[in-house]
């Protein structure tokens, strides 16, 4: 049973640069990109425009001596220039380092120091903030290219670097193809000679992706061209985006999910990507009907917010209309056999679907734990929300719910080409999830020790605990490693948070609630476990101080509750708290209702 690979349309390329160049040529006049800001449109790009601008930038990079294997970092929010810069880097055979623009300037500078890029593409104000970090000046960057430069403003740059406004590098005019940008075209009228796209082998590194922003040890995942092409191939078999697909990209493009489904995937298939430079809810809502959105990926937190908004609207319906509506929902479930079928649901539940623009075909959710009830809520309305599970190290997605029928208690079944096993399962079938596939990274940059810890006999050890259902779907139950992923898809390292409370109590430990009470509290709340010092004043004083320090933490690191625990924490010989052992104790001896919620 062999079906033609989605990559065969592009002549089975071996690198992302070649694949993009061929896709740009193949889809020529089709609409590739829309950039909007609030209720305005900044510009539209056809595939031909993308070809011209990334070609112009590739020529500029070549002139600066940027070639195969050289690294270029992007620190930008979602906009057309992100895609143009990334495509140009790949056309030069370079290695792309997509950094999280939401990290603090100090964190960004630390990652730049680790990644050692030759070129950095960044928004002007982010560079300005980085300029305030002492180490920035000594970064060995050759060129800084800035977008969004206010008129007459200097671009912050390391001492040894040159600085250039982005629109002077693409040659073919500003990426936002509107007349207002015409002035940005540099003075050289000579036609640019675009160098041919550099071929790379499948095993060459395409991207260096940092899977953690905080914590002392940067984890730079080296993902190859072959990794990305294999991932695209697998996803396109399940969701063959194509001309007519309108993908609304609201996750940051540096995020592994959006990089695949909001950049490479749509362009390889001739689809259209919509970027919004404002993510205020009212403008995101308007974008669905305005741009006839068909697909979107989001994190569980956003999905939950959508659910809350819709439930509030349903609750406001007068009783009779509410009853009619509930009847229609039941009819929809019956007619569609429990599978979300937008074609049927759009007729029965029109107002709901109109709110999503009436064209929606699929929502992908991943990056953290989604509550089955939330998923069910959307499925019953006929909105196909496909839950998935993945890791940057595994080349993005590992499993995806095929919705045939939906399995909201799981994260779906492995993608084509992925082998998944549960290592050393206990009697309940639960063990560590391990993965083997052509999509797995080559290892962490400059960290053979960590790389060795992450692999076991060719399998990637995910650190996640799970079991397989009879149908082969994966059910996740917790995490082996200490890392906690919040509902917003942010990684929290307990050690980082515990430092903020240092000195308050002799023993402190941060857990995700589901770690302590699996099955009863499977949510992502953070719980700080503290042992009050018997010599010190009351628990209330300690509680107040914890509350104060907690508020100073970044939102995603804040604990939701404190659990006071009077016994000494179990520790290793080197005095590290044995988290697993402690969790076992707490699981057996304390109840979730003993927690004191933090404001």
């Amino acid at each position, binding site marked *: 049973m062999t079906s033609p690979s989605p990559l065969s349309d592009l002549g089975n390329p071996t690198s992302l640069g070649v694949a993009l160049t061929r896709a740009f040529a193949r889809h020529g006049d089709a609409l590739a990109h829309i950039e909007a*800001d*609030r209720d305005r449109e900044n510009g539209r790009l056809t595939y031909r425009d993308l070809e011209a601008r990334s070609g112009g930038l590739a020529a500029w990079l070549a002139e600066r001596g940027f070639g195969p294997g050289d690294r270029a970092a992007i620190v930008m*929010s979602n906009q057309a220039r992100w895609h143009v810069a990334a495509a140009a880097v790949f056309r030069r055979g370079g290695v792309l380092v997509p950094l999280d*623009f*939401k990290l*603090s*300037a100090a964190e960004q500078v630390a990652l730049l120091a680790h990644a050692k890029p030759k070129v950095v593409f960044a*928004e002007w*104000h*982010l560079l300005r*903030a980085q300029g305030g970090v002492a180490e920035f000046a000594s970064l060995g960057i050759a060129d800084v290219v800035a977008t*969004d430069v206010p008129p007459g403003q200097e671009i912050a740059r390391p001492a040894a670097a040159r600085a250039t406004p982005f629109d002077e590098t693409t040659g073919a005019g500003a990426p936002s193809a509107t007349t207002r940008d015409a002035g940005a075209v540099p003075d050289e009228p000579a036609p640019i000679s675009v160098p041919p796209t550099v071929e790379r082998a499948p095993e060459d590194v395409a991207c260096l992706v940092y899977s953690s922003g905080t914590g002392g040890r940067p984890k730079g995942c080296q993902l190859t061209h072959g990794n990305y092409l294999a991932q695209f191939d697998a996803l396109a078999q399940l969701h063959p985006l194509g001309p007519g697909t309108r993908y609304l990209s609201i996750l940051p493009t540096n995020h592994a999910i959006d990089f695949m489904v909001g950049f490479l995937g749509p362009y390889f298939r001739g689809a259209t990507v919509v970027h919004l*430079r*404002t*993510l*205020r*809810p009212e403008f995101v809502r308007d974008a669905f009907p305005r741009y006839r959105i068909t697909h979107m990926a989001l994190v569980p937190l956003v999905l939950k*917010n959508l659910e809350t908004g819709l439930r509030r609207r349903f609750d406001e319906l007068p009783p009779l209309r509410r009853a009619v509506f509930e009847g229609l929902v039941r009819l929809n479930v019956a007619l569609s056999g429990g599978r979300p079928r937008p074609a049927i649901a759009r007729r029965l539940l029109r107002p709901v679907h109109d709110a999503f623009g009436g064209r929606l075909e699929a929502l992908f959710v991943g990056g953290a734990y989604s509550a089955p009830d939330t998923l069910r809520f959307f499925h019953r309305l006929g909105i196909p929300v496909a839950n998935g599970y993945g890791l940057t190290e595994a080349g993005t997605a590992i499993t995806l719910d095929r919705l045939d029928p939906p399995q909201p208690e799981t994260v779906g079944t492995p993608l084509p080409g992925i082998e998944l096993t549960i290592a050393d399962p206990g009697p309940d079938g639960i063990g560590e999830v391990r993965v083997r596939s052509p999509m797995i990274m080559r290892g962490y940059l400059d960290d053979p020790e960590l790389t060795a810890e992450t692999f076991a006999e060719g399998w990637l050890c995910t650190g996640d605990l799970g079991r397989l259902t009879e149908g082969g779907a994966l059910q996740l139950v917790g995490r082996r490693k200490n890392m906690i992923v919040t509902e917003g898809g942010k990684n929290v390292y307990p050690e980082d948070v515990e430092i903020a409370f240092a000195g308050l109590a002799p023993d402190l430990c941060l857990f995700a609630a589901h770690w302590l009470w699996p099955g009863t509290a499977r949510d992502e709340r953070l719980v700080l476990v503290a042992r009050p010092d018997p010599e010190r004043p009351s628990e209330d004083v300690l509680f107040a101080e914890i509350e104060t320090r907690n*508020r*100073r933490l970044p*939102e995603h690191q804040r604990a939701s509750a404190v659990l006071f625990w009077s016994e000494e924490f179990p520790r290793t010989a080197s005095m590290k708290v044995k988290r697993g052992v402690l969790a076992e104790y707490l699981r057996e001896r304390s109840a979730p209702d003993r927690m004191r919620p933090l*404001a």
Partner: protein
Amino acid sequence: MSTPNETLEEILDLAARHFDVSRDTLAPDDDFFAKLRIDSLKALELLSRLEGHFGVELPDWEMQGVTDFRTLSERIHARR
């Protein structure tokens, strides 16, 4: 045209009223997420409110990383 200080005062007044906290508890260098006990969604609400009040547009990308009233006020003042 008001002075930077007046802009800052107006912001503090507005934030106090909008989130119903005592004006005296807010200082220019306070982290408004912590002081007002708000999340990023609520912060966007505050931004929209300030935009309406001052008649300016504050791009999300420019506000990335801004957490204290003083910097917020500088950004607003620069756009007036």
